[in-house]
């Protein structure tokens, strides 16, 4: 084992963990204020139950030696996952690093169902999804499964994380159905600075996501790190140019979106391509997502925060372009079209399609199963009122005016007689 590698991977794990709260801010700013807490909680809550089921079961299904489709249960309950070497780092560290990926992937899906999915149903969904969809798909690519055998390249999760989450998001948006106001009233972001803060923190955390996926502190991490800066920079530049070329203004929400799209695009390629290819890839990757965002808003598909346009198209573009731009001189082995290995492009397309199909199908099954046990949607009245009050009993921006303190020892009857208006400056508790 190597202490420099261990140090980098400890830091990377913390960086990737930060991406989930960052996503909460990114998404939270894009919804209406009455749903701000609910939307942020959809990301935050993944930090709890998803991390636990990952440690107890998901990790084993993804990374324990098994068949080509799913891992065995030999690592269940973290049995045999300790300080023994996994490459140059302890096995336990590898498990927890992968855990941070398992946490953010289901949280990405929430963008397609915000402002109307019941929180309980969502909670049950992400726990089932990470076990039934994320873990096997991670096994296919990173755990020695059939996509790995086929030679599919996915450095940090273009297919495993982004195409996977986006395919689930598309199905979830369709099964849960559109918001009542969608297409009837304008639905505007309530806090664009939150969204920009989220995009910035996502970029910061993504250095751990991509460069950490080298699983060591060496030259591959350096390459992935560099590409994680250059590709989103190129996407942002291209996005800005398209904005201006179309005669419009350069928007803040657009810039925040461009950064995320660029990060998604470079994720599968980060450790396989040279820095100039990363610039090219980032710029090319802006185009499909840019126009898909504009087109989607005109359709009946209420993928509310555009998970499909940003993560689906970005992830697919990135995965396919990895098959174009991978170069042995940079990757130390993996070759793509420009390095005389055109078949890689076909392998990449196949891997995207397989992940899309499985994730979409399994997500449909999980949601339909859940719908038998519990309603997936909140009531129309609660949808109007906002999910912060209906599903969490809190508000994001309360001033505390008219808040009557409920005193613990009084009965309801005496309570009513002696209500005192709580003087709360700023509503703090």
């Amino acid at each position, binding site marked *: 084992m190597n202490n420099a590698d261990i140090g980098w991977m400890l830091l990377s794990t913390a960086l990737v963990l930060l991406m989930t709260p960052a996503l909460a801010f990114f998404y939270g700013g894009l919804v209406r204020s009455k749903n701000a807490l609910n939307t942020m909680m959809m990301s935050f809550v993944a930090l709890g139950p998803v991390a636990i089921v990952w440690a107890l079961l998901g990790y084993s299904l993804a990374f324990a030696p098994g068949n080509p489709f799913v891992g065995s249960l030999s690592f269940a309950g973290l049995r045999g996952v300790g300080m023994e070497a996994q490459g140059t780092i302890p096995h336990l560290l590898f498990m927890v690093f992968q855990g941070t990926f398992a946490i953010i992937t289901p949280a990405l899906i929430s963008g397609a169902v915000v402002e109307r999915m019941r929180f309980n149903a969502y909670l049950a969904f992400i726990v089932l999804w990470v076990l039934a969809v994320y873990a096997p798909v991670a096994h296919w690519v990173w755990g020695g499964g059939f996509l790995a055998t086929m030679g599919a390249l996915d450095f940090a999760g273009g297919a495993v994380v982004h195409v996977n989450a986006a395919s689930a998001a598309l199905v979830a948006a369709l099964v849960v159905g559109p918001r009542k106001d969608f297409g009837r009233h*304008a639905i505007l972001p309530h806090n664009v600075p939150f969204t920009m803060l989220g995009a910035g923190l996502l970029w910061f955390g993504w250095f751990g996501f991509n460069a950490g996926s080298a699983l060591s502190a060496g030259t591959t991490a350096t390459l992935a790190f560099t590409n994680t800066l250059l590709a989103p920079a190129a996407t942002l530049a291209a996005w800005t140019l398209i904005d201006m070329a179309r005669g419009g203004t350069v928007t803040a929400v657009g810039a925040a979106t461009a950064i995320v799209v660029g990060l998604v695009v470079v994720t599968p390629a980060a450790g396989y391509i040279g820095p100039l290819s990363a610039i090219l890839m980032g710029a090319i990757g802006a185009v499909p997502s840019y126009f898909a965002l504009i087109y989607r808003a005109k359709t009946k598909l209420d993928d509310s925060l555009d998970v499909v346009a940003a993560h689906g198209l970005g992830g697919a573009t990135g995965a396919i372009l990895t098959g174009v731009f991978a170069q042995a001189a940079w990757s130390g082995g993996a070759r793509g079209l420009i390095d005389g290995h055109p078949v890689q492009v076909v392998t990449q397309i196949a891997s995207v399609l397989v992940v899309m199909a499985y994730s979409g199908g399994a997500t449909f099954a999980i949601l339909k199963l859940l719908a038998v046990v519990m309603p997936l949607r909140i009531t129309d009245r609660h949808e109007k009122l906002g999910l912060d009050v209906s599903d969490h009993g809190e508000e994001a921006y*309360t001033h505390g005016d*008219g808040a009557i*303190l409920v005193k613990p020892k009084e009965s309801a009857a005496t309570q009513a007689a002696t209500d005192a208006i709580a003087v709360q400056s700023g509503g703090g508790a």
Partner: protein
Amino acid sequence: MKLIVAIVRPEQLSDVLEALFHAEVRGLTISRVQGHGGEMEHVENYRGTSVKMALAEKVRLEIGVSNHFVQPTIDAILAGARTGEVGDGKIMVLPIEKIVRIRTGEEDQDAVTPVEPVENP
């Protein structure tokens, strides 16, 4: 001339505005207010503190109209704001002593007669 003051649910505001514009009521002012209209208070919890929210968010519309516009305005607000649940709000019609349009100095009836909207340069 009458001043129509309406208190409505914030989540119905888009519907109300749509209905008003449809009825060609173009001049109005809104403000965000809080009030209590006999509806059930909901309970919120912040750490150990439980509170009953006695005041609900509402939107107040103020619309100065000429007499023959009173009923269409009321109808539009009813159409947009009614959900059937307690807490839908109130519409109040008040007499007005005088209205002056600041831009032109026009008074009373002339001041509340809509002009064709002119695009600002």
